[in-house]
């Protein structure tokens, strides 16, 4: 480990810390329909969209109406994206004359981007036309992020409102999130990435002669615009197969830092947005504090493990210590321009955040580093998470935490002035169990059927980790790949699509149900018997609940993969 490596990590944390409050305040104003700096410019467009769609922005929906609107919106999105991928060979903006996408892959990709997962069983540059990338993938990146934020805002309204039968209007929330939050930030981010060398062109792939008189095809396209929303949305689906390890997606260390900031900024800001909307910013800082501790532990662990390197390599007299001439440690699968710190930080950011972008190959990380990446996703990606999903995941754990605390001290559980009754607990458990059910159930299934084992690139615990990672990534709507597993088969395309569907929709429906139930309640005034949830004590308690629930659910699965592999590595066996 180096001082400059730690400084990179500290700089990233500092930037996120500085951006959280201003962005949080901006989000509150946007979703309340208040005046913002962009309203004079985009307000007429917003009003025109409502008129065109026949939406009355002042009319709100019950939680059930909100949920049905959310589901219909994404059903249409899935079908539209599927149709686009199947018809791309007949559509314009296909300079490479790419053929249509196969049915199972098209379904997997459509579900993947509609659910904000961005799992990719394909290589973008050789599979998708520019029309599919722009009108399909990019559009769904915007809309899935906007709908995730809308759900989080609706959930916050459940806590903030008193005796309300409604939790907002889904169509209005999605429109405002897209117009006032995602679009403006993406315009700035895309322009910045272009200054760093990210291409933005409709020209076909370049064909160049190499020094050996061979022909090399260099893929390019409208990358910068997709890159910006890929990161900001928590989506993570790259224009190129190598994702953010590709020099056209992530050319410089400065671009790398900006990409990580884009991944985290909205998720972190939503904690402040929550605090402001429930009337106490401290509540938001407590949530961010829990996220920061979990994130800090993860990045420190990965950085330390990767900097130490592989003992089997060290045994061959290879010096793994970093100095001015070499990065040291485990550089397999990492880009030299990012080094170990830049790769470890990006990997932790991408798995904690639900983004799923990668700038290094996770398959090549040390076994326990892979275990940390898995753990980040397994705890429902509450460590900032994707825009929206991280916050509502964390709030679900808050409900469990106040229930546990209430049982210990003999009080009815309350959180930010709302009583947590049996109805809310039922819904919370349904939401929290959906992801493990999909992850562990589908992993077990793939491990015992021939079609599942056929995709493995490695044997032993590492191969098992590849399968576990794939389904964890899908059900947690992360989308990053461990690599080493060939998933472009009918079996994996369909089962991963099922995992993504369960991980997104079976979580969000109960979340909205909790929102509706809480919104209908009165806000209880704070009393001497109220458990203070804006103090360090609750921060520690919440942290413990997340670790214990996550550990009880997933430790056996992790023991069979990364933990066994680590023990075998120290015994000299590599996979």
């Amino acid at each position, binding site marked *: 480990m180096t001082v400059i490596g730690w400084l990179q990590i500290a700089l990233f944390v500092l930037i996120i810390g500085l951006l959280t409050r201003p962005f949080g305040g901006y989000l509150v104003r946007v979703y309340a329909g208040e005046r913002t700096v962009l309203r004079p410019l985009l307000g007429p467009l917003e009003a025109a969209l409502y008129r065109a769609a026949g939406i009355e922005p002042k009319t709100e929906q019950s939680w*059930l109406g909100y949920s049905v609107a959310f*589901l219909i919106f994404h059903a249409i999105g899935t079908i539209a994206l599927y149709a686009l991928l199947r018809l791309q060979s007949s559509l314009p903006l296909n300079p490479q004359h790419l053929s249509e996408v196969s*049915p199972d892959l098209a379904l997997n990709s459509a579900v993947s981007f509609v659910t904000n997962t961005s799992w990719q069983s394909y290589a973008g540059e050789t599979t998708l036309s520019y029309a599919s990338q722009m009108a399909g993938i990019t559009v769904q990146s915007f809309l899935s992020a906007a709908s995730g934020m809308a759900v989080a805002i609706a959930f916050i309204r459940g806590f903030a409102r008193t005796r309300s039968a409604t939790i907002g209007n889904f169509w209005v929330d999605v429109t405002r999130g897209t117009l006032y939050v995602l679009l403006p930030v993406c315009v700035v981010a895309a322009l910045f990435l272009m200054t760093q060398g990210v291409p933005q062109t409709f020209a076909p792939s370049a064909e160049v002669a190499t020094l050996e008189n061979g022909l090399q095809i260099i893929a390019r396209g409208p990358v910068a615009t997709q890159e910006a929303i890929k990161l900001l949305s928590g989506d993570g689906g790259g224009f190129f197969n190598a994702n953010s390890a590709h020099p056209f997606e992530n050319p410089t260390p400065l671009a790398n830092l900006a990409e990580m900031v884009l991944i985290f900024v909205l998720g972190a800001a939503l904690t402040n947005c929550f605090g402001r909307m429930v009337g106490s910013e401290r509540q938001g800082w407590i949530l961010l504090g829990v996220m920061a501790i979990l994130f800090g532990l993860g990045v420190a662990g990965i950085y330390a493990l990767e900097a130490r390197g592989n003992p089997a390599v060290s045994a061959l007299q290879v010096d793994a210590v970093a100095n001015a001439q070499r990065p040291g440690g485990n550089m397999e699968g990492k880009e030299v321009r990012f080094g170990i710190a830049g790769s470890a930080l990006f990997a932790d950011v991408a798995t904690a955040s639900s983004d799923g972008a990668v700038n290094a190959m996770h398959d090549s990380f040390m076994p326990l580093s892979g275990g940390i990446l898995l753990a980040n996703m397994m705890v429902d990606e509450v460590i900032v998470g994707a825009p929206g999903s991280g916050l509502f995941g964390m709030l679900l754990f808050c409900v469990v935490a106040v229930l546990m605390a209430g049982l210990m001290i003999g009080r009815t559980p309350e959180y930010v002035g709302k009583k947590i009754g049996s109805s809310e607990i039922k819904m919370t458990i349904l939401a929290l169990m959906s992801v493990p059910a999909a992850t562990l159930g589908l992993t077990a299934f793939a491990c015992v059927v021939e079609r599942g084992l056929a995709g493995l690139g490695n044997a032993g615990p590492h191969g098992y980790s590849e399968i576990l990672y794939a389904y964890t990534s899908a059900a947690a709507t992360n989308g990053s790949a461990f690599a080493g597993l060939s998933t472009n088969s009918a079996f994996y395309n369909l089962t991963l699509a099922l995992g993504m569907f369960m991980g997104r929709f*079976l979580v969000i429906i109960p979340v909205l149900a909790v929102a*509706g139930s809480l919104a209908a309640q009165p806000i209880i005034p704070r009393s001497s018997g109220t458990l203070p949830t804006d103090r360090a004590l609750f921060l520690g308690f919440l942290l413990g609940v997340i670790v214990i629930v996550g550990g009880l659910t997933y430790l056996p699965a992790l023991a069979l993969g990364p933990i066994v592999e680590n023990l075998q590595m120290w015994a000299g066996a590599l996979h």
Partner: protein
Amino acid sequence: MFDLIILALVVGCFALAIAYAHLCDDLLARPADEDVAP
């Protein structure tokens, strides 16, 4: 043919999700003896 099967699959899954939302709505109905507010 495959496209029609997949279309039916997508519509069926989302219809099930909507049914699940209605089921959650039923589950939300509080028991009569539950303490609702202080």
